[in-house]
C-alpha cells in the first residue's frame, strides 16, 4: 500500500491541475495563431507527471521506499509556528510575530535558558528591522509597533 502513497499524491495533484486548466478561458484563434491555447502547456506537463508517477510505482514495486520515521515535536511544532506566524503578522505586528515565533522556537528546540531565548528573539528582529528600514529603505507592513515607529 505504501508504494502507492507518493505516486497517488502526485497523480491526484496532476489531475486537479488538469481539471483547473480545463476551466481556463479559451483564447480566440486570431490571437493564438499557430501557437497553443494557454491551457495546453500545463495539461501537457501534468500528463508527463502522471506518466512519471506510473514509473514511480514500478520503481517502488522493485525497491519499496524506506518507511519514514515520524519526526519529533520540534519539527511539527515549527510547522505550527509557521502557521501561527500568519495571524500574528496580519492582526498584531510582523516584528512582534517574528519575536514570538523565534522565542517559542528556541524553547521548543531545547533552549531552556529563557533569558537567552528572549535576547535572541528581541535583538535579532530589531537588528534586522533597523538594517532594512534605515539602510535598505524597506517599509514593513503596518502593525502595533510599526504604527508607533512610522507615526
Amino acid at each position, binding site marked *: 500500500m505504501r508504494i502507492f502513497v507518493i505516486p497517488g499524491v502526485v497523480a491526484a495533484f496532476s489531475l486537479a491541475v488538469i481539471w483547473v486548466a480545463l476551466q*481556463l478561458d479559451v483564447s480566440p484563434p486570431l490571437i493564438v495563431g499557430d*501557437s497553443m491555447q494557454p491551457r495546453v502547456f500545463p495539461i501537457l506537463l501534468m500528463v508527463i507527471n502522471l506518466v*512519471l508517477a506510473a514509473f514511480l510505482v514500478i520503481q517502488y514495486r522493485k525497491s519499496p521506499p524506506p518507511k519514514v520515521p515520524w519526526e519529533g515535536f520540534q519539527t511539527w511544532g515549527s510547522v505550527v509556528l509557521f502557521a501561527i506566524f500568519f495571524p500574528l*503578522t496580519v492582526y498584531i505586528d510582523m516584528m512582534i510575530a517574528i519575536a514570538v515565533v523565534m522565542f517559542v522556537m*528556541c524553547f521548543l528546540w531545547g*533552549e531552556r535558558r529563557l533569558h537567552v531565548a528572549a535576547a535572541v528573539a528581541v535583538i535579532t528582529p530589531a537588528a534586522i528591522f533597523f538594517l532594512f528600514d534605515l539602510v535598505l529603505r524597506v*517599509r514593513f507592513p503596518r502593525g502595533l509597533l510599526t504604527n508607533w515607529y512610522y507615526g
Partner: protein
Amino acid sequence: MIEALQAMASVVLDPYLIVLILLTTIMGVVIGVLPGLGATTGAALLLPFTLTMEPVHAIAVLATIYVSATFAGSITAILINTPGTAAAAATTFDGYPLAKRGEAGRALGIAVISSTFGGVFSVIVLCIAAPVLARVAYEFRPPEYFALALFGLSMLASISAGGAVRNLIGGVFGVWLATIGVERTTGVERFMFGNYELYEGLSFVPVFIGLFALSELLVQSKRVNEVVDAITLKAVKLPTREDYKRIWKTVLRSCGIGTFIGVLPAEGATVASMIGYSEARRWSKNKEEFGKGAIEGIAGAESANNAATGGAMVPTMVLGIPGSGTTAVILVGLMVHGLRPGPYLFTEQVDKVYQIFGAMLLANIVFMAMGLYAAKLFARISLIPLQILWPIVFALAVIGAYALSSSLLDVWIALIFGVIGFLARRHGFAVAPIAVGLILGEMVETNFQNSLKMFEGDWWRILTQPLAAMFLFFAVLGLFGSSIVSGISRLRSKAD
C-alpha cells in the same frame, strides 16, 4: 581581451568592492561551516540584502558566497565529520579519518590549497569559455533555446540527490509553477484563483527562500539532540613537497572534472566532488589508503567541488540556464538587478561580466587566506547551538522574502514552500529540481510557442534544426543514458 582583463583588474581598484568581498567571504565561510546552511541557502538569504547595491557588487556578493561556502564545507567535514555543505560530503571520507589520526591541520591545508586551485582554474576557464559560448549562442533561435531548456531539465534525471524519476517530477512541478500568472501572448489568467498579486507569476526569491532555507530549518529540527564529536585543531599546515608530489595529478584531473560537470546544466559541486573523489581513488597507487585518510581523496573532492563553481557560472551567464542550485539563485540575482543573462550580456555589459569574474577570482584568493589562518576560529562557529541558529535563520528568511517587493504574499509563499520542500525531502525528493524547473519554465513554454509560430504549428520541424536536434538528442541521452548503459552491461553479462 585587453578590455576584459582591464575590467577584471578594476576590481582591485574598487575599495568598496574589496571590502565587500572580504566581508562576504567571511560570511560565506561562516555559512559554509554551519551544517545545513549551504551556499544555496546562504545566497537565497542574502539576495534581499543586495537590493540597494550596484549590479556588479550584488552579483559579486552572491558569487563570493558561492565559492567561499563551497570551500568552507570542508572545515566541518574534516573536524567534526559533518559536511557543512553537501558538496563537502566526499571530503569526510578521508578528511575525518586523517584528522582522527592527529593530522587535522594537514588535512585542512590540503583542502584549502586544492579548493583554491580548483576555484582559480575554473574562473580562468570561465573567462575563456564564456565569450566563446556566447558567440555560438548568438545564433540560437527559439527552437534551439527550447531544446536547450529541455536538455537542462533532462539533466535533472542524473543529479545525485533523489532518484531520476523523483527529480523529473520535481522539475515538471517547477515548470508548472512558472505557468502561474497571466499568459503573456493571450492575457489569460492561469492558476491565480483571483489573486492579482500573482499577475506576473510567482516571485523566484520567496520560493527559493522557502525551498532552501525554511525547508532546511525543518530538516535541521530533527538534529537538535545530536552530540557532535569535535576534533581539536592546533594550526592549519601547508602541504609539504611530498604532499604536492602525491596530489598534483589528482588536483589537475579534478579541476577538469569539476569544471566540466559544473558546465552541465543542473549539475553542481556535489556531483563534481563525488566524481572527483571516485576518480582520485581509481587512478591512485594507494587505493587501500582511501577511507582511512588518503590525501588524494581530500584533494580530489575539494578541487572538483570548487572547480564546479566557475563551470556552473558558464551556462548561467551565457544561456540563462542554471548550472546548479546556487547559480539558480545567482541567476535570479542577475534578473533582479537588471542584468538579463544570455549572450547579449557579453556584448552590451561585458565590463560588468568581467568584473564579476574578477570578483570570483579575488574571492578564491581571500578564502585561501582565511582557510589557512582562521579555520580554527570558523570551526568553533560550527558549534553554535542549533536552537539559537535556526530561529535567526527564520527571521532572516521571512524578512528577506518580504523585502524584495514589500509583499506579505511573498512571506506566505516562502512559508508554504518551506513546508512543501520539507515534505518533498522527507519522501526522498530533492528541492533543487523544483527551483531549476521554475527558472526554466518560462524559457521552455515561450520558446516552444515561438517555435510553433516559426514553423506554422508543425512542432516536429524543431527536429530539422541541427543544433536543436543535437540538444534534444543530448536530452534523450540525459534521460535514458544510464538505463541504456545498464541494459547493455546486463546483456553483456548474460552473454558471458
